Structures are given as structure tokens and as C-alpha cells.
């Protein structure tokens, strides 16, 4: 087998096929591969991002929950305190009222007693005067007076 024109023909064919491959074969295939690689990379990055977002959201939710719990505890605490204070206040007020009512009762009783005493004194005076009148009516009779006086005293 000799070297002949086949060599040149093959070289020309080689040049043609290289040109053809560079023009029509390599770019679309390589582009498709690179585009898919980019797509996959994007997808992976997106999922990574989503994971991170989820993590952040979870942390935030946890924080929020903790804050809410804290607030609720505070509210309950406040409410308890307030209730306790209310009870205390009411009790105190009740006590005060009672004291007041008792005091006013005493005062009333005292006033009544004073009034009655006054009346009694008036009546005693009246009686004394009436006794004196009766004594004067009978003209002065010591013995007779004395029983009046005794009567008076007994009446006192």
C-alpha cells in the first residue's frame, strides 16, 4: 500500500470535520450540558437557601413562642397579684366599714344613753319639784316629810 492522494483527501476531510464539529456539533451540546449544570447548581443553591430560610423561620418561631409564653406568664402573674390586692383591699375596706358601723353604733347608743340620762335627770328634777310641792302642800311636817323623802329616794 503506497502513500497516495488518499492522504491529502483524508487531511481535507479531517479539516472539514473539525470545522463542522466546531460550528455545529460542539456548541449546542456543550451549551446544553453547561446549562443543565447551571440549572442543577441553581436548584441545589435554592434548596440550600430554602433550608436556611426554614431554619431561620424555625428559630424565629421558637423565639416568638418563648416571648409569648413569657408574656402570658407575666400576665397571669399580674392578674394574680391584682386579684390578691383586690381581695386585700376589699377585706380592708370591709374591716373599715365594720369598724365604722360599730363605732357609729356605739356613738348612737352613747347618744341615746346621754339623752335618756338627761330625760331621767329632768324627770328626777320634776319629781323633786313635785315632791317639794307636795311637802309644801302638807305644810311642814317633819315626819310626814320624811316618808316623802324616803319615797323620793326610793323613786330615784
Amino acid at each position, binding site marked *: 500500500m503506497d*502513500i497516495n492522494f488518499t492522504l491529502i*483527501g483524508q487531511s481535507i476531510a479531517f479539516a*472539514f470535520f473539525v470545522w463542522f464539529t466546531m460550528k455545529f456539533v460542539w456548541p449546542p*451540546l456543550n451549551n446544553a*450540558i453547561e446549562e443543565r449544570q447551571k440549572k442543577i447548581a441553581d436548584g441545589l443553591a435554592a434548596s440550600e437557601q430554602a433550608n436556611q430560610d426554614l431554619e431561620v423561620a424555625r428559630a424565629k418561631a421558637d423565639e416568638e413562642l418563648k416571648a409569648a409564653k413569657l408574656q402570658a406568664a407575666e400576665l397571669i402573674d399580674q392578674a394574680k397579684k391584682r386579684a390578691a390586692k383586690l381581695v386585700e383591699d376589699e377585706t380592708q375596706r370591709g374591716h373599715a366599714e365594720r369598724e365604722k358601723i360599730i363605732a357609729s353604733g356605739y356613738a348612737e347608743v352613747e347618744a341615746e344613753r346621754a339623752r335618756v340620762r338627761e330625760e331621767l335627770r329632768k324627770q328626777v328634777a320634776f319629781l323633786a319639784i313635785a315632791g317639794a310641792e307636795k311637802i309644801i302642800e302638807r305644810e311642814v311636817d317633819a315626819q310626814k316629810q320624811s316618808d316623802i323623802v324616803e319615797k323620793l329616794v326610793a323613786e330615784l
Partner: protein
Amino acid sequence: MAAEGNTSIQGYINHHLSDMTIGEGFMAVNVGALSVAIILGFVFVLSFMVVGRKATTGVPGKFQCFVEMIIEFIATSVKETFHVKNKLIAPIALTIFMWIFLMNLMKLVPVDWLPTVFGAVGLLINPEAIKYNVEGYSLLEKIMAHPWSYMTIAPTTDINITMGLALGVFFLIVGYSIAFKGVGGFLKELSFTPFNHWALVPFNLVLELVTLISKPVSLGLRLFGNLYAGEVIFILIALVGLYQLPLHFAWAVFHILVIVLQAFLFMMLTIVYLSMAAEDH
């Protein structure tokens, strides 16, 4: 061309190792090798182009996957070796790999099949083409005497094909050298390496030119030598009668390795040579 006795052992071997030619002297063309080479080249570029046209960036089909595997493989090989950005290098590598692979693959077709078919077709269409007297030949002998039966279908067993590829690579080496270093830079590299002294310029020139020429020559001869030797073994195996079946199978299995390896070597060395041409060293 073995005139008589195409069915004798020597004639049989000669018959298989020659190709159907058109023309005389240097202007002759080995029709079998060149036409099969060009057909296979088109098989490669057109099938890959169709895949490229329909290539989706979504879930690829099976053939697209296969094509993309090859593309990825080539792209990785190129990226590892060729460090300058260049949009021609990857297509060169892909063309060389796929084309040589397909041409080598033709060797796995049993050596007698297609020559018999072509010879039979030739005998039917153009019986006058037989250039010598075939009186008294059997039909098979007549078929094998027809010039069309010389059709070779394994292009890489033809030194013209492998050296034609190497010649292309040679021009690419020169082209890359000039494109990346300029004509002056290229000549300077030829003249002043390895010894940077004006008095040694002729010596350097001889050394560097031998280096330059030896690259494509070794490329072409390596491919040719491997596959030609393999082809000779296939032909010898075909001569041993019934025992050829297991032998042929074993040798063919071994050759699956050889054909891929040789295609890969040719591609890889081309990338290496071109990267040497493109980079300063």
C-alpha cells in the same frame, strides 16, 4: 494486486491488505478506505448534530446521555491538559476521538463479509471489470477476483488515512504555534531552543525541526502500526478454518480495548502537542 490465486494463502492475505484504487501513481485514491472514512465522519458529525439540535437542558434521553458522557469526557481531558482558553481545541479532540474510534470499530466486522458483498455486487453490475481470465473459476473465486472486492472497510489500517490525520495535526501544531507566539516567536523557538546561543542556531534548528516532524509522524505511525498489525492477525485467524471462530472472538474482544485506547491516545497526544504549541515552555 494479486492476479491469480486469490484463494491461495498468500493471495488471500495480499487481497485483504490491498484496497480498491482509482487512478495511478500518487494521484491514486484508495476508494475503500477514504469513502468509509468520510461516511463514518458524517455518521459522527450528523448523529451528534441531531442530538445537539434536540438537546434539552431538562432530563436527557439515553442517546443524549451517551453523547454528553463523551462530550464531558473530552471536555475534562482537554481542560486538564490544555490550559489556554481556545474554542477550537475541544472540537478537534472530539472529532479525532470519535472519528478514529468509529474507523477502528470497523475492524470488528469480520474481514471477509463486506469484500464478498462488494465483489458480488461488482460481479452483477460490472462483470467486465475483472482484468484477467477467470475461465473455470468457482463463483466465490470470481467474486474475489473482481476489483470491487478489494474494498477495505477499516480505514485506519491504511497508512494514508492515519498519516492524513497526522498531517492535519501537524498543520494545527504549526497554526497554534503561530497563533499564540506569532511567526517571530515560533521561529525564535525553533532557532534558540534548547541552546540559547546564536552560534548554535543551525544545530537547534535541526533538532527542533526533527522534534516538530516526529510528533505527527509518530502519531500516524502508532495508530497505523497498531491497527495494521491487528488486521494482519485477523486475516491470519480467518485462514485457520473452523477454529477461527473462538480465536476471532478472543482477538475481537481484545481489540475492543485496542480501538478505544488508540483513539484516546491519538486524541490525548494531539491535545498535548497543541498545548505545547500554545504555551511557552
